């Protein structure tokens, strides 16, 4: 299958790959997986006292589209408020990366991951 240039760029030069301390109170961790293809994705955000996402990291074991989707999301969410990040839609990711219909689920996975990370952070803060 032909990947778009943007997917290849993110796949070859993934942004923000890494791991944060999941026990840190300012860190929110989102773990998601797609049973159909066996892909697993971890997306983490570091949030400032004012509720702004300062940093984001991800690690994805999956196809190029899944890696590109999560890499893109970590770029996008930096500087966003939690609410803005939680409102990210998979369609925005799919459009940006020009994902073909069979790879739309990869963008869904990335949307689920950022939502899970925000939810995890909020739960930690008791909000």
């Amino acid at each position: 299958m032909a990947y778009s240039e943007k997917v290849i760029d993110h796949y070859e030069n993934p942004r923000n790959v890494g791991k944060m301390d999941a026990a840190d109170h300012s860190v929110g961790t989102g773990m998601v997986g797609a049973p159909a293809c066996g892909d697993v994705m971890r997306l983490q955000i570091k949030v400032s006292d004012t509720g702004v996402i300062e940093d984001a990291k991800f690690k994805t074991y999956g196809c190029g589209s899944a890696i590109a989707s999560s890499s893109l999301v970590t770029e996008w969410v930096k500087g966003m408020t939690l609410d803005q990040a939680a409102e990210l839609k998979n369609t925005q990711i799919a459009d940006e990366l020009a994902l073909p219909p069979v790879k739309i689920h990869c963008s869904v996975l990335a949307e689920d991951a950022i939502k899970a990370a925000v939810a995890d952070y909020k739960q930690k803060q008791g909000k």
Partner: protein
Amino acid sequence: MDIKQNFFEFYGLPEVFDIDLGLLSQRHLELQKKLHPDRFAHLSDQERRLSAQYTAYLNEGYATLRASLLRAQYLLKLQGIDTHNESSAPMDPVFLMQQMELRERLEDAPQHADPESELAALDKDVEQMMAPLQAEFCSQITIPAEASLHAAAAAVRKMQFLDKLRREIERLEDDLY
């Protein structure tokens, strides 16, 4: 023979997870003989097409019933659940965390002092995680209740992750040796 039958019926086997694999192979050979193209050489185009259709169904059925994961997925499909094609399903975070760790271990394996035994150990761990899931599936799928069906599907989804991991282990083994 009737391709409107499901694979279990087609092979004359009970619709269960724990099938007799020896019997499956034996039936497969018998059916293959019955469907051998040479026996249809004198028949009309239409009848030969039909025999080719049967052979395709036979081969798909054999591949499906022989592999444990495919067989489990097929049993669920017969109950209306398609875990193979669903786009997303919420998974237990603890399980996902564990999957992430196993994938990290696999990623680090080439740098391991003894990659070969590390991969073998990983493969064994996957096998040990697979066994209880198969047992869980096996017992849940026989209970005719909605909750049991969902528990059976949950076990298969986990098996799908492990199956992917196993294929990744094999791929790395091929790359390394």
